[in-house]
């Protein structure tokens, strides 16, 4: 059997396989430093660009194609194609090991900040892009690699009718008032006072976005970069997670959190079976639609800031959604850049979706009218040290932007996991501080 020919043949097969594989591998390594500058003449720029997006719904119902058609009125020679990806984070992360990850893409959370220059073309200097919110999130060595698609304010989405029925008409000013309000809802109405969305999990991550609301502190995110025991008494994370713990502990959340369902929760909130959920302002339009679907009214959906005040005023954090970047391997960088600029500034996407435009000078959207009318202070949370914070977070395996630790918090609160809140926070602090020491800034 083992004659020469067969071994030669099988090694040839092996070699061929290895060759194709190695051809697939080895992303990165493109020419770094070439700026994806906006084109000077819209009529001249040409080429086909591929835009990766997680909004499969907008690709399927043709909304994004309509935006592309609008875009073509100004840039007639650019052809825009969309790749809707359901599991955006997981899939794009793997595609980034090749060179084919589209021309315009959202920067996946998994990419380390220091690697941005290896994957994305710089869009300009910090000064050039200072008109956009959150541009410090993607700044590496004075160059910016991504522009936020939009921002959202964070707060509680609530059903005004239910809250009114329970006799609460003013926004609670402290966590205690908030809990009292939920208790009133439980006693006086049929509704579930607060819905955690424990099973789907990601809505629990929204709590992290409150970072900074207690002290109205735009630097609250950066403050985590170090061995600072983020859950110590009086800290931002402590305030948010304690409130969540108390809500569950006092039985003010849904009966069986393990079988919750995000899609149906929208209709339940709209219909008044759920009173409150912690979410970003992006969800308001979805909730209004859901309310109308169940014969409610869009007017029933309200949005309130985190129940804490500084100098008699509520605060709300603005956080950036995905950042749009141009692939370093793109062959049509000017066209790609033109799309990003147009989409961020001129498409009207942010207004339609009811989210905060990434352009600093743009007005607040109608969905946040409650906030602007009631004099809520908005602050753009600085993301300058997000990279270090993420490194610590990953090393500690806590997951500030993952659901797991809050699921455990809820389990602890309802007695399904052992331990007290103090021990839980102490453990998190210990892990965070230990990890911070191993991560060089």
């Amino acid at each position: 059997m083992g004659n020469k020919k067969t071994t030669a043949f099988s090694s040839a097969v092996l070699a061929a396989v290895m060759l194709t594989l190695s051809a697939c591998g080895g992303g990165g390594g493109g020419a770094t430093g070439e700026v994806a500058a906006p084109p000077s003449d819209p009529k001249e720029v040409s080429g086909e660009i591929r835009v990766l997006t997680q909004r499969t719904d907008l690709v399927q119902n043709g909304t994004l194609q309509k935006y592309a058609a609008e875009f073509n009125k100004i840039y007639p020679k650019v052809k825009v194609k969309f790749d809707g990806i359901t599991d955006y984070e997981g899939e794009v992360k793997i595609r980034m090991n090749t060179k084919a990850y589209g021309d315009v893409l959202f920067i996946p959370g998994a990419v380390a900040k220091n690697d941005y220059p290896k994957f994305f073309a710089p869009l300009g200097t910090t000064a050039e892009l200072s008109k956009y919110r959150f541009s410090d999130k993607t700044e590496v060595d004075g160059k910016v690699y991504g522009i936020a698609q939009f921002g959202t304010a964070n707060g509680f989405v609530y059903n005004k009718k239910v809250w009114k029925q329970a006799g609460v008409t003013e926004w609670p000013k402290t966590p205690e008032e908030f809990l009292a309000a939920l208790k009133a809802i439980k006693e006086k109405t049929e509704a579930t006072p607060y819905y955690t969305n424990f099973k789907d999990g990601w809505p629990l991550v929204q709590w992290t976005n409150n970072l900074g609301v207690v002290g109205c502190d735009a630097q609250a995110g950066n403050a985590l970069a170090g061995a600072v025991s983020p859950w110590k008494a009086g800290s931002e994370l402590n305030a948010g997670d304690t409130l969540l713990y108390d809500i569950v502990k006092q039985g003010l959340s849904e009966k069986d959190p393990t079988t919750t369902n995000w899609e149906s929760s929208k209709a339940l909130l709209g219909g008044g079976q759920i009173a409150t959920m912690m979410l970003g302002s992006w969800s308001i339009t979805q909730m209004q639609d859901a309310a109308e679907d169940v014969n409610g009214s869009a007017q029933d959906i309200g949005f309130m800031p985190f129940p804490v005040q500084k100098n008699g005023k509520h605060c709300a954090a603005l956080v950036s959604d995905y950042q749009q970047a141009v692939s370093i391997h793109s062959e049509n960088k000017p066209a790609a850049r033109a799309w990003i600029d147009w989409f961020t500034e001129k498409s009207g996407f942010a207004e339609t979706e009811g989210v905060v435009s990434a352009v600093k000078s743009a007005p607040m959207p109608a969905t946040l009218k409650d906030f602007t009318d009631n004099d809520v202070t908005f602050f753009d949370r600085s993301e300058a040290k997000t990279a270090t914070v993420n490194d610590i977070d990953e090393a500690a395996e806590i997951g500030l932007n993952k659901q797991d630790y809050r699921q455990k918090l809820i389990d602890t609160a309802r007695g399904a996991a052992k331990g007290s809140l103090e021990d839980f926070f102490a453990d998190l602090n210990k892990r965070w501080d230990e990890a911070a020491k191993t991560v060089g800034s």
Partner: protein
Amino acid sequence: MTQTTDTAPEGAAMTGRSSTDKAKADAQGRRPRPAGRRRGPAARRTRSWRDSPLRRITPWLFLAAPLALLITFTYVPVASMISYSFTDWDGVSPDRENVGFDNYVQIFTRPELFRVFFVSGYYLAASVVQIVVALYFAVILSFNLRFRNFFKGILFFPYLINGVAIGFVFLYFFQDGGTLDSVLDQLGVTTDHPWLGDPTSANVSLAGVSVWRFTGLNFVLFLGAIQSIPGELYEAAELDGAGKWKQFRHIIAPSIKPVISLSAILAISGSLSVFEIPYIMTGGATGTQTFVIQTIKLAFQFNKTGLASAAAVVLLLIILLITWIQRRLVPDDKVDLV
């Protein structure tokens, strides 16, 4: 059957050989003569084809596609996984650093990474139930019974359903006021128990789903083995006055022993690497995290691809080790009934 397949290629090889080859064969002193005797007109007619290099290569051409697929999708990924396990790769970055055995040291010095194996205990217990139930039905349905094909179908059916679909179906089944609660309600039992609400109940529920799903597979394996037992044995046993239990004890059980031990291996390796059902239904929350879910989280939530690869390698080694121990304890001896 065996004879024809044995001689045909041998004869072909002999007739196909050139004179030098034949001399070599002579020197080895093995079976040169029958081959020489067989040389007839038929052999001469096909010699050119048998001699051609194309013929030697043909089996390899047939093998090329499956081998290429096997190598591309199994061995190369496993090899790269093993190589990642010695690095600190985050899964995306073009740079990775070699860290030697650091990842392995970390796995074995962090007891919390192994604590998740307790969860596998639930599934192991469940797989014992599963094997017993499957064996019971296989034995019953191997006898002549009304509607037996219908029952076979019912028992095997769950195995054909996609695991993800099963996860979703049972999510509705277990939810508050879901199928289980309403069925119990019909029976007059009113429970207010959140089935996936606390670790014990959640793990038992999930293990129950796993039993429901995989009983069919075990059942079919057992049934196949049982049906290969010649019918005369039962007749003879009946004549000797053996009842059903004695028939099972002395005929069925010994003859399906290899299948039972295969099922045991599958059960153990299966319960160590449970994934789909808990991942879909609870995502590993409420104390239902298994080793594989933990590995996935390390790789894709915390971007520790190196550590996760090492964890996967460790799981592979553990399963190999357990299989080996099991083979040593229960040697796979030949079954001889007659």
